[in-house]
């Protein structure tokens, strides 16, 4: 029987949750790297036993861990992230120039075809890549160097490159998102980049044609339609049908269009999920009710999914990297909260149940759908 492996990054370590395809009984492994912040861990689509984890601490900096056996054992690999050339400056919160300084890796995106190739989105915002399984990392400097870099300004969480989306149909096309610079696309494997923010509207940016400055929280894509992108912006849920060249709002009837997490159903490219959050200063669900919202129409028309989720006195947040889907026939949807719960739905969101309730604050959730040869439970 197939199985699933849920990779959970938290403020105090990583956890690996495994189940068979029924997704009723779960085995919980962890904490791995206890006491360290695990911003993200993710498996390779080309080799599901190859995992990469971003481990960091305010005391001891950045570590990258790699597993070749599905998370049973880990080995630290290279942690040297050095900006290409003279790093230059971006804008600080007060508008003054500030030198680019590496702080941490927010997101690791393994190649879809090569387990040794991984992209790393980092703070201060830049994109790095390894092609040797993490033994060395090199910046793709065209992103910071395309022209607008000196005007980028950090969001409240820092100047972080937090989203990396690879185009399954074209290895040379990559989408990234940076808070609070916006979304960018390369069509030539990272040599050159262009901002793709046309149509985004943000309070505080009076110029509707501003090239950068938008606080994009998350971008999601269905692998069968890489030209269609969905975006959870600081405020507003957006959609692009031309690979980011233009965006239009699809927030529709959401109770709040502020939020962080977003994903697309594994088999229905017009079905997407978001978790509305009350506001940019109130990072918890509206009315104390934890509700996932699902649209089956590519946005605009949303339904609340509540069965099994707390509907009173709930004031957790769901962070941008903390939602994922599996690819089993009945699509599973998963998300983690800052309250330490990881919820799973084995029926595309109709019913939910917690896998675990009391982890440290969840920073990221990724899911691997395992073939019978690798499923263990």
């Amino acid at each position: 029987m197939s199985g699933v492996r849920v990779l959970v990054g938290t403020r105090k370590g990583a956890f690996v949750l495994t189940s068979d395809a029924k997704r009723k009984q779960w085995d919980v492994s962890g904490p791995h790297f206890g006491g360290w912040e695990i911003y993200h861990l993710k498996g390779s689509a080309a080799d599901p036993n190859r995992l990469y984890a971003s481990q960091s601490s305010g005391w001891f900096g950045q570590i990258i861990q790699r597993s070749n056996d599905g998370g049973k054992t880990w080995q630290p690999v290279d942690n040297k992230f050095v900006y290409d050339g003279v790093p230059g400056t971006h804008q600080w919160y007060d508008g003054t120039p500030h030198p680019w300084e590496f702080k941490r890796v927010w997101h690791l995106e393994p190649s879809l075809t090569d387990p040794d190739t991984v992209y790393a989105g980092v703070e201060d915002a830049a994109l790095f890549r390894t092609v040797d399984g993490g033994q060395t990392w090199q910046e793709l400097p065209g992103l910071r160097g395309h022209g607008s870099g000196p005007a980028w300004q950090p969001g409240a969480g820092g100047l972080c490159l937090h989203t990396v989306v690879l185009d399954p149909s074209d290895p040379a096309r990559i989408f990234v998102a940076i808070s609070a610079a916006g979304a960018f696309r390369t069509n030539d494997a990272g040599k050159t980049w262009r901002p793709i923010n046309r149509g985004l509207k943000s309070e505080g940016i009076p110029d509707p044609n501003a090239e950068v400055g938008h606080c994009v929280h998350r971008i999601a894509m269905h692998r069968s339609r890489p030209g269609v992108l969905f975006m959870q912006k600081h405020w507003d849920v957006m959609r692009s049908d031309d690979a980011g060249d233009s965006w239009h709002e699809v927030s529709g009837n959401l109770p709040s269009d502020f939020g962080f997490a977003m994903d697309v159903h594994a088999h229905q490219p017009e079905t997407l999920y978001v978790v509305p959050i009350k506001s940019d200063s109130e990072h918890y669900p509206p009315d104390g009710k934890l509700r996932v919202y699902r649209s089956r129409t590519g946005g605009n028309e949303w339904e609340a999914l509540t069965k099994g989720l707390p509907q009173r006195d709930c004031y957790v947040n769901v962070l941008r990297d903390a939602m994922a889907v599996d690819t089993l026939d009945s699509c599973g949807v998963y998300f983690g909260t800052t309250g330490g719960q990881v919820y799973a739905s084995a029926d595309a969101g109709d019913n939910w149940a917690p896998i675990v309730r009391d982890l440290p604050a969840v920073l990221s959730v990724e899911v691997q759908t395992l073939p019978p040869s690798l499923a263990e439970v």
Partner: protein
Amino acid sequence: MVASSGVIRVVLPAHLRTLAHVDDEVTLHLDREATQRSVLDALEASYPMLRGTIRDHITQKRRPFVRFFACEEDLSHDLPDAPLPDAVATGAEPFLVVGAMAGG
């Protein structure tokens, strides 16, 4: 100050012991004068996974929340090429790498 006896003892904070897969203090063989730089160079040569965790990869400066102690003295602000105390150089006392206390 005396030349290194060849054996330096280093005590790491718990998280770095875990990272380096060591249970107790680390023993290093040093063929140079014992200084912060020479000890940390030897430590990182033996345990490459510690590179970047105690001092910055590029500047080689001590990370802000890491401190160095030995013989009940705070050596954190000593110059990296200053000789370490004799007791550290002879292996009588360990060189302590400490994660600074933080919190509220």
